[in-house]
């Protein structure tokens, strides 16, 4: 897919909490096509500390409204700056980057999208995409507490939503991999994104139940488009760049001890 460097405009910055912001970006030009699982490298301006761009997943694309959504969790200076962007401000992005989740050819596939924390970001776009292909979507979303469950009403537009929270304030209490759904149902495809320990637990479940499973990895990135070779992960084919060969990997490719 052709990559672009674009200056987009903040149409709205929805402060979901003091830790999360949803940036709704737009452009006077038509946004390029993007696929679920892909990400953008966002330039952070006006900070003496941030030098490199920041990788942010494509959370959602509304082609009819020409909107790109980015879901930001504030963890350091870069994400803090991004989450503080104001309407009408301009943001420079490289996009779309990376590969994407693979879409089952069989419309009757049972699919489960498991997200944790800000890792839910790419799953919204994936859910929309799967639904548009006529596939029934189940989301299993986990967070620390109810306040950390993001975009719930958005997810509900595309499928059935199950939740877990560590404190039990919403859905079942515990981790996503402890949810009863995983004991009671069997899926053909699992897609997951979230903290590495969570994804490893999901991968272990998928492995045990012989379920096809794709995970979206993070890694420290300098470029985001395959030239610095900083972002490798260990795979059965050796060191592969997460930014070009990923971020989505089938767990059979990874060398995770599961």
């Amino acid at each position: 897919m052709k990559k672009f460097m674009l200056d987009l405009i903040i149409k709205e910055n929805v402060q979901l909490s003091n830790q999360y912001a949803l940036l709704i970006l737009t452009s006077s030009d038509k946004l390029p096509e993007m696929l679920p699982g892909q990400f953008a490298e966002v330039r952070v301006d006006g900070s003496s500390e941030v030098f490199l761009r920041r990788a942010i997943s494509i959370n959602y694309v509304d082609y009819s409204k020409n909107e790109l959504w980015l879901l930001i969790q504030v963890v350091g200076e870069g994400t803090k700056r991004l989450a503080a962007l104001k309407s009408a401000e301009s943001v420079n992005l490289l996009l779309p980057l990376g590969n994407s989740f693979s879409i089952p050819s069989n419309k009757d596939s049972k699919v489960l999208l498991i997200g944790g924390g800000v890792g839910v970001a790419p799953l919204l776009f994936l859910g929309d995409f799967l639904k548009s292909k006529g596939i029934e979507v189940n989301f299993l979303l986990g967070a620390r507490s109810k306040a950390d469950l993001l975009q719930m009403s958005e997810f509900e537009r595309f499928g059935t939503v199950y939740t877990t929270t560590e404190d039990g304030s919403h859905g079942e209490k515990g981790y996503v991999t402890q949810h009863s759904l995983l004991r009671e149902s069997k899926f053909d495809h699992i897609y997951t994104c979230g903290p590495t320990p969570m994804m490893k637990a999901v991968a272990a479940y998928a492995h045990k139940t012989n379920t096809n499973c794709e995970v979206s990895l993070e890694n420290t990135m300098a470029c985001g488009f395959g030239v610095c070779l900083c972002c490798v992960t260990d795979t059965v084919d050796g060191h592969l760049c997460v930014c070009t060969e990923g971020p989505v990997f089938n767990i059979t490719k990874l060398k995770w001890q599961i």
Partner: protein
Amino acid sequence: MANLKIKVGTLQLKNPVMTASGTFGYGTEYSDFMDISRIGGIVVKGTTLRDRQGNQYPRMAETPSGMLNAVGLQNKGMEYFINHIYPTVKNIDTNILVNLSGSTIEDYIEGAERLNELEKIPGIELNISCPNVKEGGMAFGTSCLSAAQVVKAVRRVYKNDIMVKLSPNVTDISEIALAVEAEGADSVSLINTLLGMAINSETRKPVLSTITGGLSGPAVKPIALRMVWQVAQAVKIPVVGMGGIMNATDAIEFILAGASAIQVGTANFIDPTVTIKVLDGINDYLERHKFSSVSDIIGAMEI
């Protein structure tokens, strides 16, 4: 339009803007963003005789106005380059140089011999300065003797242009430059990365898997500029300057300090079109200051 053409060693560059090895892939990765044939030269990723998986991750740390990398020369080896990459890059209408690395002199010789075969590769950048290539615990590029030995050996077998890439991790870089000039280098390029380190205070662990890594970006520019100036004073062969170049002004500073051409590295990660901006900016500068040719400002700093 000012005349941007410049000769560097035996290379004819359409302009002095090149890309630094390890920061521009094989060029084609940038073709979505810009017309890569516009730049003066592309130095491809560090290539070794045999394929290398490079270091474990994490390989990168952001630092104030810079970054550390510990890639460790991951590449698919000379054979793969010749069979799978060369057929594509040979069609790019600019100078494609191969950055050649090795861990023994024999590796360098064999690599250079293989590259002799490639008609569309006008030269090599001999990398004796990667903080990860070791010879008795010390990079070739940090002693005059071993630097001279490598260049001598490669000069004997390689018929095209040899640009030698120098390490800044030395007491006296001019000394090394003189040593490689004496053995027949056509030009020198500098600087490679400075050895640095980052620690995560919360986990109390090094950020990089290799503990130390190579520092690049604007943070190193003042050091790079000083070294380019020192080396340009010392040697007669052309000097190719790099280290933290982010824009045309930075590039012009290196040229004024004595560089015949420059390489843009880390900046490509932040703005994949930066080389074109640098190129156009150099032309604007020359026109604004009424210089007809870029060669008029090489080493033109007035003291």
